[in-house]
């Protein structure tokens, strides 16, 4: 029999991960793993350099007024939060690649769904950060320094 009734077999209406889709997802997972590792290492390195260099840079400006000290503190906290969010996104991307690969290898729907959840949170963080970056870019365009 070539066709079947949906009422008899409701699972026929389900969407499945087919052979091509699975293989492309596998490759996507490989590259996302590479990207996440590079991202964690790169942002970590940048944070370390920033932490070491900040006191020297601040000394270079000489004595700061209390007002400017407050602004610099706020800017440093904002930068630390930005990079912290980026590291969190990179860790979640690594989690996505690990869980999705495991879910596909073990044919485990639950693990596969957890991998998708990690990708969702990664894109959520990146979406919020890119909105903030766009706002910053527009601000710098309107009020150039």
């Amino acid at each position, binding site marked *: 029999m070539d066709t079947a009734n949906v009422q008899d077999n409701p699972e026929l209406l389900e969407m499945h*991960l*087919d052979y091509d889709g699975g293989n492309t997802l596998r490759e996507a997972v490989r590259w996302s793993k590479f990207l996440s590792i590079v991202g964690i290492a790169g942002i970590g390195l940048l944070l370390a350099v920033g932490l070491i260099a900040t006191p020297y840079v601040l000394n270079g400006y000489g004595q700061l007024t209390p007002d400017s000290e407050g602004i610099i503190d706020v800017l440093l906290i904002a930068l630390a939060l930005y990079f912290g969010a980026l590291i969190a996104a990179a860790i979640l991307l690594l989690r996505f690649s690990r869980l999705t690969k495991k879910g*596909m290898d073990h044919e485990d729907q639950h693990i596969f*769904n957890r991998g998708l959840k990690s990708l969702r949170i990664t*894109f959520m963080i990146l979406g919020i950060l*890119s909105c903030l970056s766009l706002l910053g870019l527009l601000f710098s*365009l309107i009020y150039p320094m």
Partner: protein
Amino acid sequence: MDNQEQVEPVSDLDNFFHLSFDAISRDQLKQIAMWAKICSITGLLGYLIQLYEWLFGHSRLASNFGGGILGIVFNLLFIGGGGVINYFLYRFAAAVSRGVQNTDALHVNHGFNSLRLYFRTAGILAIIIICILFIGFLVGFLGALANS
């Protein structure tokens, strides 16, 4: 019955991994597509603004990368690469949201191809940036050694 919907049976290749997009994963995919669309549109807008600044304004980006041919190459790499990445991300988001809306696995699976291209292009760009940084560091280090 005449009004009963007839569908093709699921072949082995269609369900090769024995994984389906159930209600939970469909909901996740829907939200992934929404956030990926936000990322790609804001990213594309950002790169368009930077392109405008580079071509017609006093771009902070252009002054960071320096002038001359090297500056043009870096700008093209940064803006062009970023634009291409965000285009792939938009294609992924559009295909997945269409697939989830129409309950069509083919679109979702095509979307994964765009996700693969997105991650691959971003990975290749990351390798190029790491190589450039390494060469710059090496040149700076050798220059400092020669001066001392």
